[in-house]
């Protein structure tokens, strides 16, 4: 079946059940198709992509009736590969196939204008046929794939993706921006729906990551740039300056408490409810357990600033040491050697990338109606820290306004009487389902409010607990059972979102709510109010997405290729996503996605090579004048001018680098470049057909 053979086109029109046939008169389109030049076979069928549907095409090819195929059906974005495969199976070059999108872009969009939809479907088919007449056979290309994988983000999602890949024998580089892996889960007390202790299930996994021979753990690091594409990404990772010699640091913790008060800043791990020093280890179970210096907070005691100078005491001549270095038993905190504030750059070559950078919880400060500046109005994440045994009050339930008192007393070794809170009130959907902030539902807060309420109520049965919900969302395995248990415990669940919180005398808060079931405004006098603030993408996610060349959706989370069919893929081949970076979700879902992403990466890389569509550009040396216009235009640097045998410079495209964008093709003044699959003639044939449509139709 050579190229010179006259085209004999088969047109196959799909009903897609009622999806197409409900708006488009399929028979009329078929009749019309028969009149088109070079069309020799026209058939319509209920479901073209079904086995019998594909068989129709295959049979016609095998019978030698046709040598070009046009399927008028849904979108090539999902179904082109299926039909190409069918052509190939029947022995036809699979690039002799063209698809006419008469469902997504016709019947569905013009459902109520049946006549016009039918006319438009004809136009679309005519354009596809016009292109099909000019199709050329192409050969697939193969590229070699690197087998290493980069995982960005060391939360539960990143951890699981790394472990699955590493266990399957793939080398993993896990890049985490903070000093320790663990992510948000490390901050949680217990976890729904089983209430097992977060640290107990997370810590062993963190240790496994640290010890795994196939995992190269790069914490306190960030991705700086990416080049290349699927199978061959070149990644630059910046290891930020820790200002502590990690080879020496044993994580003994001796340095943690010696920073002077001026260098103490709110502790991120405790969500600002306690202070940490400038030199710190994020949390006791950190992996790796190493100290870093937060240079924004450090006051450089004794002028010790890593400048390489060694100040000495004027009298004794002894070196002046900062408190941190003085107590450090290993010399890890030594401030004498110069340290580059830019850290160092590590270069990696990987075949695939998994992005699992998670989320952050929304700040409470913008919610003015809820008195956010009051210390006893806290976010749910702060509540996690408040009830956690590793939290600022060591798991003892106190009003957040009493924490400074408690910490002060602990430092002095004194006992203090602190009044127990009697009432705790939760408020749902703060910043979620809210057109002012995020319109989406954060998906986990209903459950974690129930969780925190349950934990508190079980531990302190005297507590009065109220939860204001718009509606309780518990769609998951064992979730609604969990909700019912809360009701049985006597936690008061109010259907209605609270409208405001006001401080009232006696260091209490008045929550103004509404009970939609009894149709009355209600008020609760409470000691602590907990705001279930939205889960939102980290501010830096957009930038990272841009670096990686993947998309973010309108809400700011990473966008999957297809919600249902490719939920962990992105539009960029070889880059996968998992966990809350893709959208709010709980731990079970984050883990499931992580494992799916790992499996997808494995199935991509395992064969070691992959086919790529030959839809790339090629220079016709005869036509090229060597003007050089195309060279700087290529975003992938695929074009260069080379000296030909006749001594003239002419353009050449490196097929391994070309991605087929067509920018060069469009720009070449001599029309010397052909973009296979979208040639000048092919696209123009389509355009002309559509432009002339009213005539053709008449």
């Amino acid at each position, binding site marked *: 079946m050579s190229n010179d053979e006259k085209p004999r086109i088969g047109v196959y029109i799909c009903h897609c059940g009622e999806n197409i046939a409900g708006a488009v008169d399929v028979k009329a389109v078929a009749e019309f198709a028969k009149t088109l030049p070079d069309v020799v076979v026209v058939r319509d069928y209920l479901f073209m992509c079904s086995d019998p549907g594909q068989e129709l095409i295959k049979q016609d090819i095998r019978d030698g009736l046709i040598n070009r195929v046009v399927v008028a059906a849904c*979108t*090539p*974005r999902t179904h082109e590969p299926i039909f190409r495969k069918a052509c190939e199976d029947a022995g036809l070059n699979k690039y002799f196939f063209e698809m006419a*999108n008469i*469902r*997504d*872009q*016709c*019947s*569905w*969009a*013009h*459902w*109520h*204008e049946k006549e*016009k*939809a039918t*006319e*438009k479907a004809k*136009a*679309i088919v005519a*354009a596809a046929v016009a292109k099909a007449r000019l199709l050329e056979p192409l050969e697939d290309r193969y590229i070699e794939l690197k087998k290493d994988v980069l995982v960005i983000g060391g939360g539960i999602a990143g951890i699981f993706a790394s472990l699955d890949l590493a266990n399957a024998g793939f080398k993993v580089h896990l890049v985490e921006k903070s000093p320790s892996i663990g992510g948000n889960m490390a901050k949680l007390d217990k976890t729904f729906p089983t209430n097992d202790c977060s640290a107990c299930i997370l810590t062993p996994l963190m240790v496994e990551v640290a010890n795994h021979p196939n995992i190269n753990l790069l914490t306190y690091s960030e991705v700086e740039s990416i080049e290349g594409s699927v199978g061959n990404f070149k990644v630059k990772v910046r290891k930020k300056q820790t200002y502590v010699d990690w080879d020496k640091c044993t994580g003994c913790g001796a340095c943690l408490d010696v920073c002077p008060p001026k260098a103490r800043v709110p502790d991120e791990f405790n969500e600002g409810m306690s202070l940490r020093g400038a030199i710190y280890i994020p949390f006791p179970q950190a992996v790796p357990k190493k100290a870093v210096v937060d240079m924004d907070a450090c006051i450089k005691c004794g002028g010790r600033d890593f400048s390489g100078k060694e100040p000495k005491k004027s009298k004794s001549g002894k070196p002046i040491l900062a408190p941190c270095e003085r107590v450090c038993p290993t010399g890890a905190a030594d401030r004498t050697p110069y340290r580059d504030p830019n850290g160092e750059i590590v270069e990696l070559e990987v075949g695939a990338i998994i992005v699992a950078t998670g989320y952050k919880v929304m700040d409470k400060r913008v919610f003015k109606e809820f008195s956010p500046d009051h210390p006893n109005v806290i976010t749910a994440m702060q509540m996690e820290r408040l009830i956690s045994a590793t939290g600022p009050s060591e798991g003892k339930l106190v009003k957040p306004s009493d924490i400074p008192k408690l910490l002060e007393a602990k430092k002095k070794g004194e006992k203090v009487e602190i009044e127990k809170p009697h009432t705790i009130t939760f408020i749902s959907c703060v910043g979620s389902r809210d057109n002012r902030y995020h319109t989406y539902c954060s998906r986990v807060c209903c459950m974690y409010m129930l969780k925190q309420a349950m934990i508190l109520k079980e531990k302190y049965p005297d507590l009065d607990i109220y939860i204001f919900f718009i509606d309780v969302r518990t769609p998951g395995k064992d979730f609604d059972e969990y909700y019912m248990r809360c009701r049985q415990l006597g936690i008061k669940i109010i259907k209605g979102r609270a409208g405001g919180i006001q401080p009232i005398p006696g260091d209490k808060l008045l929550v103004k709510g509404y009970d939609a079931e009894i149709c009355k405004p209600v008020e609760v006098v409470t000691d602590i109010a907990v705001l279930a603030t939205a889960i939102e993408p980290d501010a830096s996610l957009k930038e990272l997405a*841009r670096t990686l*060349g993947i*998309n973010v*959706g*309108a809400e700011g989370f990473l*966008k999957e290729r297809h919600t249902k069919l490719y939920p962990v893929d992105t*539009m*960029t081949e070889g880059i996968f996503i998992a966990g809350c970076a893709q959208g709010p979700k709980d731990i079970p879902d984050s883990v499931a996605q992580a494992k799916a992403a790992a499996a997808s990466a494995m199935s991509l890389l395992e064969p070691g090579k992959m086919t790529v569509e030959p*839809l790339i550009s090629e220079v016709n040396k005869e036509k090229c004048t060597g003007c050089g216009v195309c060279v700087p*235009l290529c*975003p*992938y640097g695929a074009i260069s001018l080379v000296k030909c045998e006749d001594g003239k410079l002419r353009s050449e495209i490196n097929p391994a680098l070309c*991605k*087929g*964008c*067509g*920018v060069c*093709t*469009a*720009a070449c003044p001599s029309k010397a470049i052909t*973009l296979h*699959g*979208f040639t*000048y003639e092919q*696209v*123009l044939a*389509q*355009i*002309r057909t*559509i*432009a*002339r*449509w*009213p*005539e053709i139709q008449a």
Partner: protein
Amino acid sequence: MMEEWEPNILVIACNWCTYQAADMAGSLRYCYPPSVKVVRVPCSGRVEPEFVIEALLNGADGVLIGGCHPGDCHYKEGNYKALRRFEWLKKIVEELGIEPERVRLEWIAGSEGLKFAEVMKEFDETIRRLGPNPLKKV
């Protein structure tokens, strides 16, 4: 004749965004005028000015090029190229004696099905207001 005139609008859509948006508009059943017909290209940067001119010369009443939002191009920067070419294209169109409103460049992301439908509705109205392509009468 005049009252029967229906605009004929060509959309040259980038495969990674506007083409996807058109699919999404359909799958979410956002209706837009059937006068709109889409031709797929890999990138708005693939669009040669000639494509648009040819479309107009052959009678299309309006041509819209759809690309990814600046910064979101699947091929990094094809849409910037499209934008630059478009400025130039507008001038030629005017020289041809065609109202410049008949050609448009829009950034429509893959997730913006609704935007696709709305832009198409609006473009259709614009073209209806302008009437048939003046070159067609000749």
